[in-house]
């Protein structure tokens, strides 16, 4: 089996460099046959793409989608400086 460390590095690079994702802020953890993806994304479509790209970069491993959607709320309280 490939060293998890290198799998994680490859998945992370794929997520950053693949045109479908270009996500730099996704945390990738590999434990045995399991790949965990954590971070924030702006829409469901982008979340799916991240999972797809990760699956391609880590064939045979199980990819867990733990990504959260950033909900852009109406502006809140202002800060006085």
């Amino acid at each position: 089996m490939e060293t998890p460390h290198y799998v994680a590095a490859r998945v992370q690079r794929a997520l950053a460099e693949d045109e479908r994702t270009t996500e730099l802020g996704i945390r990738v953890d590999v434990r045995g046959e399991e790949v965990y993806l954590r971070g924030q994304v702006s829409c469901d479509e982008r979340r799916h793409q991240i999972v797809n790209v990760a699956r391609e970069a880590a064939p045979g491993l199980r990819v867990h989608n733990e990504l959260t959607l950033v909900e852009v709320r109406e502006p809140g309280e202002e800060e006085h400086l």
Partner: protein
Amino acid sequence: MRELRIAAVADIHLGEDLRGHYRKKIEGIERRADVLLVGGDLTRHGTIPEARVVADELSGLPIPVVAVLGNHDYHSDRNAEIIDLLRDAGITVLDDEGTVVPIDGVRLGVAGGKGFGGGFAGKCASEFGEPETKAFVRHTKEIAERWRRALKELDADYKIVLSHYSPVKDTLMGEPPEIYPFLGSYMLAEAADAEGADLFIHGHAHAGTEKGVTPGGIRVRNVALPVIKHAYTVYCLNGGY
């Protein structure tokens, strides 16, 4: 002097898939703020079609919009065209320069640009060794020098630095420390501290935190969308020179 209400956001990373979404959230912004500052990473891949979405979402607002580009906006090597496209849409884009926005007789000075990395005092890269390393550090150094000049030349009542990269570590908290050198540089803070400013706005660190301060005491705010989780945050400036 009148209080200024500064709306700020960064890392909106727009693309065709998000068309219309951000615009909806900023409708009515003129009731809450006098100006909107956008701290880079406007697009995902830095393509022209994405930049058109940005122009459509941010143009035609009743308040002035001032923006800088981020690293994502450079990805397709179309950065110069993106700047032209946004300027044609009425958005002021700062590329290592300053501008004065008049707001009801108050002059708001904004200076900045994309910025760059290198790390923070004590744990930073230096202009030594391989040409690649030297080029990396020199890029930040030259940017900081241009910002310093731009800040000095600003004739304004309030001054704000608008950047994509961070000037301090404070607002990177939550990011892995190993990547700090790619998230900002102390040289950006040094430039602001040398000339003085009322606020330093940046983005880029999606997992960072909102609030920090430069060694010289300038308030720093990381307004990356995943950090502030609102369409924008409003900062009110009351002091002035």
